[in-house]
């Protein structure tokens, strides 16, 4: 029983990290209706840039600021060069464009910084803590704390401020938003910059946990089922779904894996997401979309 609880908690804590990645999607999806496949490569790009600056002797906060500035600059470039020319095109076209962006982020990150693995030290200790008789990693706890704080800030920012309101207005109806004086281009840049910020934080936490390397770009594939279960539009839903996916895939790997073979982690979340889709097509907290002819 104790082992079961430890697996459950470890999985759920990892799930918070999935949620952190998935929130980057939700931000952009709510603001521009774009499903941004490049979120994973943005994480890789941000983490590689940061770690290389730090390894060249740049202090932590300056490296953080410089990386963030590069991400904001790419948000401007993406809005101007990719999204604006593709305005009013189908969601699938926009998705494919972010697939192209994803390749560009991945390729340029590794062209600039090489593809070897970097260790990243954030000064967070990683030792097992005994809490109520259960062993929990202290790094996981701190990372969860950071991720959780960020999630709450973002939820408040997009839910309770006028910026959040304009983000949602643009997503609901770009034309109506334009006509009441919301700057479409500015809102898009802000959303992509926020997503860049989330990517940087996620990149640092994941990088410190498992090394800064190419596999960071693949987290996007873990975040996708989380998004589908949580619903594309809901930050709360994504957090619940992150916990659910993280915990259930670890449990499945250990208990189900013993029966049908290991390596289940790679696909379990997708099968779970598929089952959810069949029952609740809009996810746990997503809003049902109305279609008009």
């Amino acid at each position, binding site marked *: 029983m104790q082992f079961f609880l430890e697996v459950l908690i470890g999985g759920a804590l990892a799930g918070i990290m999935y949620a952190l990645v998935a929130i980057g999607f939700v931000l952009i999806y709510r603001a521009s209706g774009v499903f941004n496949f490049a979120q994973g490569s943005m994480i890789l790009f941000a983490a590689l840039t940061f770690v290389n600056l730090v390894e060249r002797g740049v202090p932590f906060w300056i490296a953080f600021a410089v990386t963030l500035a590069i991400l904001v600059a790419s948000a401007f470039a993406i809005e101007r060069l990719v999204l604006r020319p593709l305005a009013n095109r189908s969601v699938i076209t926009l998705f494919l464009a972010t697939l192209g962006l994803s390749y*560009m982020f991945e390729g340029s990150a590794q062209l600039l910084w090489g593809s070897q693995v970097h260790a990243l030290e954030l000064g967070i200790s990683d030792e097992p803590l005994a809490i109520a008789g259960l062993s929990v990693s202290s790094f996981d706890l701190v990372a969860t704390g950071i991720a959780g704080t960020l999630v709450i800030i973002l939820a408040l920012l997009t839910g309770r401020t006028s910026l959040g309101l304009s983000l949602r207005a643009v997503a609901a109806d770009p034309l109506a938003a334009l006509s009441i004086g919301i700057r479409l281009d500015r809102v898009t840049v802000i959303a992509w910059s926020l997503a860049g910020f989330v990517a940087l934080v996620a990149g640092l936490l994941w990088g410190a946990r498992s090394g800064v390397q190419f596999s960071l770009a693949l987290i996007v594939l873990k975040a996708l089922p989380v998004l589908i279960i949580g619903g594309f539009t809901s930050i709360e839903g994504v957090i619940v779904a992150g916990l659910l996916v993280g915990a259930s895939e670890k449990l499945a790997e250990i208990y189900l894996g013993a029966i049908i073979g290991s390596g289940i982690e790679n696909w379990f979340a997708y*099968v779970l997401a598929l089952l959810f889709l069949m029952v609740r097509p809009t996810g746990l907290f997503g809003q049902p979309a109305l279609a008009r002819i």
Partner: protein
Amino acid sequence: MATIPYPAASGTARLSLTSFWIALLAVAMAPFVIGSDYLFSAILVPVLILSLAGLGLNILTGYAGQLSLGSAAFMAIGAFATYNLYLRIPGLPLLFAMAGGGLVAAIFGLVFGLPSLRVKGFYLIASTLAAQFLVPWLLSQYDWFSNDNASGVITAPPLLITGVSFDSPAGRYAFTLGVVAIVTILARNLIASPSGRAWMAVRDMDLAAAALGISPGRTKLFAFAVSSFILGVAGALWAFTYLGTVEPAGLDLDRSFQILFIIIIGGMGSLSGNFLGAAFIVLLPILLSRAGAILTGGDLGSDVLENLNKVAFGALIILFLIKEPDGLARLVGRLRPTNKPIQQEPN
């Protein structure tokens, strides 16, 4: 109503159509005269197979409007099903085994297409990605699929049709060309049939299509089945005529993206686009590596080249989506003379 009347031009049009087919035949046959083994096995065979895979995805995505990121999984199913049918049914001719492999892939396509009855757009990505991750896991987890071969890598059996061997590089090209040509012609006829038009109606507006009496669910599932069948045959060719081994390793998510790029660059909803896109995607890395070697005077290293390829493909995808959403097929189409009457399909 076969042709919209268009005075004086129809004779030349028929002539140019005939000459187009002759030119196409000449292009397909030319390698036998001038071809080297490298040209056959490193360029022509993969281009043809990837064209066929592109055709498979194009039917689902370009014609029926359902996005898939799992193309390579259905190729893997086709390859392994063909291998097992050929292995376990004595005396089954290879071509029949390949068709059987395609049918098995089609059945899996139906299964993974089921969520399309309830969800649309990128929710559907989850279903095809599930296929992409689940299928290679299944194939490498259970040894039965690879006939209890310890390494999981199987050498493909020799290419024999009625006792004639196709095992030389030119023979492999001829074999691939034959299969690809037959499947392409069948697919072309299917696209021109009411089924094909139902796909396009569902793609353009499924609610309107339903109002016209087309069942969107059945139409989508049929597109999934046909698409997976073609991908399965392409996978069988990939294993039997290109690699010479049957293994799931090369048929991963990156391959699925590559096939998606073929239809974006070549042209969604176009038959010739698959061939143009596949040729482009096979040739660009080769050209990049040659250009890099000339510009820097040395070898760039495979790492740098791979990343250059990624940036180039990413930029090209975006450029094509913005400037030429109909892909290379449209670009090439513009070069042709336009005095052709608008032809409509006979009823």
